[in-house]
């Protein structure tokens, strides 16, 4: 790769993007920061509260609960989706007419509006008329996702696996298809086992896309809102109330602006921190 030339005029090319993202990111973020340090009794009258809301959020069991559930959810879906996605990508045909068909069918869940995903799984998992709910009960399991926290969790996780594993498959497949045939032929001549091919040829080639997959799945699952909200509404009880659901509840449902804003800032800082760690790791991997 040739080196880039220094040209400060390039700022003019970036300016439109900078302006529109700043409009959407900086102004709202400052609004949130404002709310997070102020209290109000009537519209337009605000007074400074310092870190009161932050202390309140950080010491509230409700926030701890939502945060704990959020990490558990993210850990579970990463542990399922990444290996499953790699497995399916390895099993995909490498060429031929079936490749397009498989890719289109697999990408389909990614293009369904998120509330439709929730509504679809709602219908699919109904214990009396849904295929999943009816089937599980027919098999003898006591399953009802609107009443049992365990069933609700299982359904939410299964829905996320259904919705997003294809993203991992597509990324891993893209990584695999960049491996030249010669590599496989050489491995065959050397009599390498299938595992050795995976360990020394396929896995290193997929490393970069897998980091991207991990990053995206972490971020998106960390801000998951619509699908579990439509499916379970955060229930039964609070059992599937993740961070975003709790936040929207506080901000729009209860109009608890100070608390919601302080939560937003903490939430945003957490995602930013993880994003930065991943980004640095990725860039370092690219340089070497």
């Amino acid at each position, binding site marked *: 790769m040739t080196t880039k030339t220094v040209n400060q005029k390039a700022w003019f*090319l970036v300016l439109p993007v900078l302006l529109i993202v700043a409009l*959407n990111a900086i102004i709202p973020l400052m609004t949130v920061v404002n709310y997070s340090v102020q209290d109000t009794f009537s519209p337009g009258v605000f007074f400074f509260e310092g870190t009161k809301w932050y202390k309140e959020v950080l010491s509230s069991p409700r926030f701890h609960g939502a945060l704990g559930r959020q990490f558990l959810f993210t850990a579970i879906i990463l542990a399922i989706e990444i290996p499953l996605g790699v*497995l399916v990508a390895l099993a995909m045909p490498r060429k031929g007419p079936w490749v397009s068909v498989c890719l289109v069918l697999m990408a389909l869940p990614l293009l369904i*509006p998120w*509330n439709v995903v929730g509504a679809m799984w709602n219908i699919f998992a109904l214990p009396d008329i849904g295929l999943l709910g009816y089937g599980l009960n027919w098999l003898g399991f006591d399953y009802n996702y609107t009443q049992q926290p365990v069933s609700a969790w299982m359904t939410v996780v299964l829905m996320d696996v*259904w919705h997003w594993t294809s993203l991992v498959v597509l990324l891993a497949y893209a990584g695999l298809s960049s491996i030249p045939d010669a590599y496989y032929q050489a491995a065959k001549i050397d009599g390498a086992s299938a595992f050795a091919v995976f360990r020394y040829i396929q896995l290193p080639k997929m490393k970069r896309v897998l980091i991207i997959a991990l990053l995206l799945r972490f971020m998106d699952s960390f801000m998951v809102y619509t699908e579990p909200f439509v499916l379970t509404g955060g229930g039964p009880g609070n059992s599937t109330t993740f961070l975003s659901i709790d936040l929207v509840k506080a901000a*729009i449902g209860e109009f608890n602006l100070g608390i919601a804003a302080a939560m937003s800032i903490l939430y945003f800082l957490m995602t930013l921190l993880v994003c930065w760690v991943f980004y640095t790791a990725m860039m370092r991997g690219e340089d070497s």
Partner: protein
Amino acid sequence: MKGAKIAVVFVYILFLMLPIYWLLNMSFKTTNEILGGFSWYPQEFTLDSYKTIFTDPTWYGGYINSLSYVLMNTVISVSLALPAAYAFSRYRFLGDKHLFFWLLSNRMAPPAVFVLPFVELYSALKLFDTPLAVALAHCLFNVPLAVWILEGFMSGVPREVDETAYIDGYSFPRFFIKIFMPLIAAGIGVTAFFCFMFSWVEMLLAKNLTSVAAKPIVAVMTRTASTAGYELGLLAAAGALTLIPGVIVIWFVRKHIAKGFALGRV
């Protein structure tokens, strides 16, 4: 070995298709049959749910509203991102790396954080309840994404192309439109696909930035689910119809999709 591989792919696709089949199944049933109990396929096949959607303006209006902000957003995102991605792929300038990370960090910002301030911002701009408000709000995550994908594609074009064009006396805009854009046409297609996709599937912002006039289909659906009783057939039909735009755009980019995911680093 070969058989096991086919089985894995087959079972996975079957798992993906089952909930979709169930949605279609429900959409062709009458309300009585749905409430009547479990059945594998519609006993009394009916298109009533679809008829309701295509004759009621709140329903079909929802689709029109959604499509209009999605298309607006795609056009805005791609056209703003093109020059920026070119700058990132070709030049070094003060603060470029920080700027790139900052842009990217917005792709990672949870929309739930921004809902309330967005409502205030777009009300202040007198854009509340218009498709343009949603289109601009979705730029928060789509513009950084578009820059990221396009930068990947542009870096794949050798710099000699630019230099030759400048020596031949092309001005920057003419070079960009006449020579450079055709070279990365596939990349532009893939970028537009992802912008379309992420704007189409998003609900939280779209729902909260509109109230009556610009109500998107996703919001119309939640209203039905909560207030108009439990009209599952109607809900299923509305959901089934939201699959169509996705299927159409995915068919257009099927050849590039795997490559786009890799190069585009989505």
